[in-house]
């Protein structure tokens, strides 16, 4: 640079660092921290494996039944967490997902039960999928309108929708579970393709598509930008309101698919199907490395986070520990994840609060 002006201040001429090259590469420590959810998962699996070998001489993870059970177990929380990942990256949160899932499960059971005699089992399942996921998009849309148009904080708006969806789901279910009898539906819920449960295949395909949406498209890119600096995104010409609206519809649809698959698995719809899963979904996202302040997170991290929770819950049952330890373990993992995240930010010198 040639045109540096003479400065009247003190001798500030010599100390200037070569600012051009001050950009830092990621340190090995940071890279490990990025993978922390997967490391957690590996450590957990090894831990349970060791315990089960010492305690009763059997294998934990090499048993295909266990792998299948964990995968089936993880489907619903993973689907919720996938939608939640998008919302949390944008700087919001969706508390209504659990009951949107229950609503979709009840709707799917009703629609399929009603349509099976008239249009046959196969078409009834398809109709049930479209209607239940479509219905799940409605509370998502209301969430989106509340947050984007009426500037209601996501925590409050989706908390309201939590109550509304819960009430509507219980009303539709008549306060009980809604059984449904359809061979195609229960084949979807319990059948396997080459030994892999269908619902795991459907969930995996969906999650892969969501990974693509978040990491490879403008929608995903704008989602990160909005979460980091909404003002910047707006000035760059991004239509924040329509993005946020689509975002909450998307999380509603994720919950809808989870509800549909739940109904398939149990051949019944229940309003409370997703009730315990909401916090698990948030936990999976946080364990997966997203920041609740928005701007960071990945679907692959969330997948690891969801499996960390599933492995803890299933593994503790498997080694015969009292089930209440599940809550404690998942809670500890969440706290440790957040601590690691904060330590990482401090070490990397990221300008978090600027």
């Amino acid at each position, binding site marked *: *640079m*040639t*045109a*540096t*002006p003479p*400065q*009247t*201040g003190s001798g*500030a001429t010599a*100390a*200037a*660092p070569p*600012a*051009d*090259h*001050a*950009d*830092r*590469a*990621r340190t090995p420590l940071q890279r490990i921290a990025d993978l922390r959810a997967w490391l957690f998962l590996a450590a957990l699996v090894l831990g349970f494996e060791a315990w089960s070998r010492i305690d009763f001489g059997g294998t934990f993870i090499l048993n295909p039944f266990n792998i299948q059970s964990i995968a089936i177990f993880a489907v619903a929380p993973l689907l919720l967490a996938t939608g939640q990942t998008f919302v949390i990256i944008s700087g919001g949160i969706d508390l209504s997902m659990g009951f949107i899932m229950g609503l979709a499960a009840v709707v799917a059971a009703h629609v399929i039960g009603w349509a099976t005699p008239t249009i046959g089992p196969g078409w009834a399942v398809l109709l049930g999928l479209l209607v239940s996921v479509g219905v799940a998009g409605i509370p998502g849309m209301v969430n989106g309108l509340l947050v984007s148009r009426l500037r209601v904080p996501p925590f409050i708006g989706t908390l309201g929708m939590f109550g509304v969806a819960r009430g509507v789901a219980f009303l539709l279910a008549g306060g009980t579970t809604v059984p449904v009898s359809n061979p195609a539906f229960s084949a979807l819920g319990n059948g396997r393709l080459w030994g892999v449960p269908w619902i795991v295949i459907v969930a995996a395909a969906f999650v892969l598509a969501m990974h*693509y949406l978040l990491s*490879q*498209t*403008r929608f995903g*890119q*704008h989602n*990160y*930008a909005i*979460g*980091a*600096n909404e*003002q*910047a*995104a707006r*000035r*760059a*010409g*991004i239509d924040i309101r329509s993005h946020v609206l689509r975002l909450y519809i998307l999380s509603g649809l994720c919950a809808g698919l989870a509800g549909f698959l739940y109904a398939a698995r149990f051949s019944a719809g229940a309003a409370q199907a997703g009730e315990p899963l909401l916090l698990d979904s948030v936990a999976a996202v946080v364990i997966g490395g997203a920041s609740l302040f928005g*701007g*960071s997170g990945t679907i692959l991290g969330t997948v690891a986070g969801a499996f960390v929770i599933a492995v803890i819950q299933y593994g503790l049952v498997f080694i015969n520990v009292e089930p209440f330890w599940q809550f404690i373990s998942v809670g500890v993992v969440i706290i440790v994840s957040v601590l690691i995240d904060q330590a990482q930010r401090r070490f*990397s*010198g*990221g*300008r*978090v609060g*600027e």
Partner: protein
Amino acid sequence: MSEPLLDIRHLSKSFGPVQALSDLSMTVGAGEVVALAGDNGAGKTTLIKAVSGVYRPSGGEIRLSGRPVAFASPQEARAAGIETIYQDLALADNLTIGANIFLGREPMRRAFGFLPVLDRRRMAEAARATMALLDFHVSRMDAPVSNFSGGQRQAVAIGRAVYWDARILIMDEPTAALGVPEQRKVIGLIHQLKAQGRGVIFISHNLQDIFAVADRIVVLRRGVMAGARRIAETTHDEVVRLMIGG
């Protein structure tokens, strides 16, 4: 002399009974840096917001290369080549330089011949080329902007304007939040923009910076022009007198 790039004629802006800006005229030529000075509330911000499409002027006219323009939104002003670089930079800290330059206008390519995906390589290459144009040589294009220093981030914001071929850059206190070496870097950047034939409006409280980089200075006081001087023909004392009305 040829047509000025930006020609502001008798511009006024009132908010209800408050006259924030009245009858202000100034020009910015190609390759010219015009500093805008004045105390808080003097009308600097109102002026740049009127020029950049945030406010609609209540009177007067803005001409761009001789043609009258009226912007309904900042997007329209940007499309016409007027880019404003705000104090708070308007960068998404978690994205790369390339992603910030292309934010809202990301290039896509087709993976496997059908699947549309973000063209990250193109963004990175454009970012590298643009930053080199500003004499900032960045080695890692995949690092988020948060890894960079204040001056570098300022350069990214300027780089975005340069990439989209802004002819007029309005910079609101670009050196305010920076340390001394970084301030010099930004001053150097403004010299680069000038050499590229762009027009720059430079708002600053720092007379050092103004005298280091500007060709002319326009001083506002309570919404009216308090004086316009060529930098070569004025002094710090005179500018301060204009600002405080002594």
